[in-house]
């Protein structure tokens, strides 16, 4: 799948999901189990993305490098209630400085 195909497919599917909410009868999706699945799903997906982006290198091998330190800094910033953009910039700066200092 080319990048453009992926971009457009993801966009169409995202819109279809949004639109379904407006046309599907509410009772189809009501229920505690649906609510639990839909709140748990983004947690698992985002946590998995954090883990993969932080700890894996080429070919998916486990790697401990500047990214882990940067994410540590990001978590501290989040605990201190820093805004999203500050968290992201702090992580980038941490990784950039560590690499400047010779870390991989």
């Amino acid at each position, binding site marked *: *799948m*080319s*990048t453009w*195909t*992926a*971009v*457009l497919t*993801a*966009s*169409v*599917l*995202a819109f279809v*999901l*949004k*639109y*379904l*909410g*407006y046309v*599907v009868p*509410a009772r189809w*999706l009501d229920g505690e*189990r*649906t*609510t*639990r*699945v839909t*709140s*748990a*799903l983004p*947690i*698992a*997906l*985002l*946590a*998995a*993305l*954090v*883990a*993969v*982006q*932080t700890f894996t290198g080429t070919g998916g*091998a*486990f790697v401990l490098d500047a990214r882990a330190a*940067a*994410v540590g800094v*990001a978590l501290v910033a*989040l605990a201190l*209630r820093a*805004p*999203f*953009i500050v*968290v*992201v*910039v*702090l*992580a*980038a*700066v941490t*990784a*950039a400085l560590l690499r400047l200092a010779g870390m991989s």
Partner: protein
Amino acid sequence: MTAAALEPQRRRQVLRQAASVAVATGAYGISFGALSVAAGLDIWQTQVLSLLLFSGGSQFAFVGIMAGGPTGAVAAVATSTLLGVRNGLYGLQVARLLEVRGLRRLLAAQLTIDESTAVGVAQPEARAGRLGFWATGGGVFVCWNAMTLLGAVVGDQLGDPRTYGLDAAAAAAFCGLLWPRLKSRDAFAIAVVAGVIAVVIAPHAPAGVPVLVAAFAALIAAFWGNAHRDPAAPHHGDGEDGAAPGTTGPREARP
């Protein structure tokens, strides 16, 4: 209440809330733009994601997986789509509030994200709710797209993204999206299990697939876990928590 016109003071109040959410959210459209070009997408592809896909969590996930190479395209689409499922549920709530048909319904659907839903359903009166939804959705759309373009253009000039720590910034962005959802012990447990599963599988699966497999941890937890309460309900409207379009739950799950 529905038929009565909104008092000017209430109107200003709702619009101010919408504006603050739009500016706060738009501000890190800039990080999306930069991360997207760092992941190998061009400026046009990046901008089309913000215009058409328009759901922050899905967009960050999409480019995050595409960064692993074009082999991850299918997984990128799948992950983006799974993250977009909750927008459908928001639509369900917002549809009752808006009562729109035809073209306006298509437009409303496109603007149905965490922020617009949150501001909309948080208003006590239906009229204010409708104003809140449209103002927030439209405001976030404009700010998010403008900042995406800025981020993409700047990011394009940078060269090797690793030099600037942009790979770490991507990981931090996912942390920022995840953080407001970790409100319960169950939510935290799901996150840890999913993270471990993804890392363990990563060496043995193509890019993006570990994330999808980890999503099953969520489904299992949701089916067997006991009452995993309200993890997706960060406070909203004050623009202080890291919220991208489509990344944090509305304050109230039901209107």
